[in-house]
């Protein structure tokens, strides 16, 4: 009996080791990006649509082009500290290759071969096109170098075990689109929302492991900071017109002419930099959402 139990434990360890091996951080093969060259002008659009600065600028900063990191994000899993992603070669990501950058965005894998925590919304960015990745890289290299050393996250056990993020990715890193889109405008809106804007990171509730509950897509969720609630933006309880949504994203004004506050004010600052066509596409996508469960 004792030997049998020992056997079960050993088998369990072997299976666990196998799973962790199979789900180890994946780098992208350099050949995949060999023939792509970056267009910084489109990269700027990707940058603002992707909302990079909202998390990576300094705490309280209004400078959307300075990315020293340092903002702290308190979540049920612990406190994450946004890293420096400026072009500084020593403290930022200036010495990365475009392929390392792509591995980070598309696979959630660091240049050192570790899993990133999904506070970095790579479950969204995983849907980006390779060309947009290259364009974003070209743009971000034009931004100033910021000399600020990174601080470690403060994450409690067991969430601090990065290897466990391998199986997590199998469960929750899904590169398929969430919503159907059958017109070019809806497809553009879906790309802006599901691949860049990561709206669902806050507007969709999470399960106990922090994965998105896609059945309640955009159905509203507790604020990850612990205070208040992120609203439902599906027809379940949200009735703004497409014009209202597009104007809100441009100006921050609600249909009642209250103005955006909190984190959404950061989002509006980014969305205001997009073209009117892109804001209209996002509005069309939101209007096409099914009512959340």
């Amino acid at each position, binding site marked *: 009996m004792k030997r049998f139990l020992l056997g079960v434990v050993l088998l369990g360890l072997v299976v666990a080791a196998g799973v962790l091996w199979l789900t180890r951080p994946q780098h992208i093969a350099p050949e995949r990006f060999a023939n792509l060259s970056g267009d910084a002008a489109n990269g700027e659009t990707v940058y603002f649509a992707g909302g990079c600065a909202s998390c990576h600028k300094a705490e309280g900063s209004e400078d959307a082009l300075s990315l020293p990191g340092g903002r702290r994000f308190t979540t049920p899993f612990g406190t994450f500290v946004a890293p420096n992603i400026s072009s500084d070669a020593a403290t930022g990501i200036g010495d990365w290759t475009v392929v390392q950058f792509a591995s980070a965005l598309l696979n959630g894998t660091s240049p050192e071969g570790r899993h990133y925590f999904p506070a970095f919304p790579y479950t969204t960015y995983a849907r980006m096109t390779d060309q947009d990745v290259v364009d974003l890289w070209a743009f971000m290299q034009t931004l100033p170098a910021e000399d600020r050393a990174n601080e470690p996250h403060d994450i409690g056990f067991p969430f601090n075990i990065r290897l466990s993020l391998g199986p997590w990715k199998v469960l929750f890193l899904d590169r398929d689109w969430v919503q159907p889109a059958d017109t070019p405008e809806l497809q553009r809106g879906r790309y802006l929302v599901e691949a860049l804007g990561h709206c669902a990171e806050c507007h969709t509730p999470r399960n106990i492991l922090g994965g998105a509950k896609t059945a309640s897509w955009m159905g509203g969720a507790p604020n990850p900071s612990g205070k*208040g609630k992120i609203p439902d933006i599906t027809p379940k309880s949200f009735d703004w017109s497409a*014009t209202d949504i597009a104007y809100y994203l441009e100006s921050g*004004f609600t249909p009642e002419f209250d103005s*955006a506050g909190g984190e959404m*004010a*950061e989002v509006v600052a980014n969305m205001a930099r997009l073209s009117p066509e892109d804001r209209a596409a996002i509005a069309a996508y939101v209007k096409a959402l099914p009512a959340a469960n």
Partner: protein
Amino acid sequence: MSRLPMIIASVAVVATAGIAIAGSHGGNPAVKARQAHMSLYAFNMATLGGMAKGEIEYNADAAKAAAGNMAALSTLAQGAYWVPGTSTAELGEETRALPKIWEAGSTAGEIGGRMAEAAQQLAAVAGDGKDAMAGALGGVGKECSACHKGYRQPQE
């Protein structure tokens, strides 16, 4: 020097009036005044924003009137109803004004100053066509958000 006694006297009068009103009505009068001020912004914004969105046809006279109101509102002396002791810390759910407004390093006053400039810019161009008005409206919206972002408690 000659203004100082005047300022002290004004503050004393306002404080006394505030206490008197607070004693005789429900709710904090400073909070009610702030919310009334915001309602007046929103009412005038509805005209301008409706035109910017294309939901109301642009009309230069109506735009000028609403923008003039915005500019006038933004330059009212508001110190008496942004008094210390009226934040969420003291009044709980009655207000969404965060204590940060009154803390050292607060930029709320500067934002208010920029808001007044943006509103005057808006009033200056509101009669010059829809695009000019809508563009200047964006400048006002930026300041509304700037203050709501850092100094107003999120909803619920």
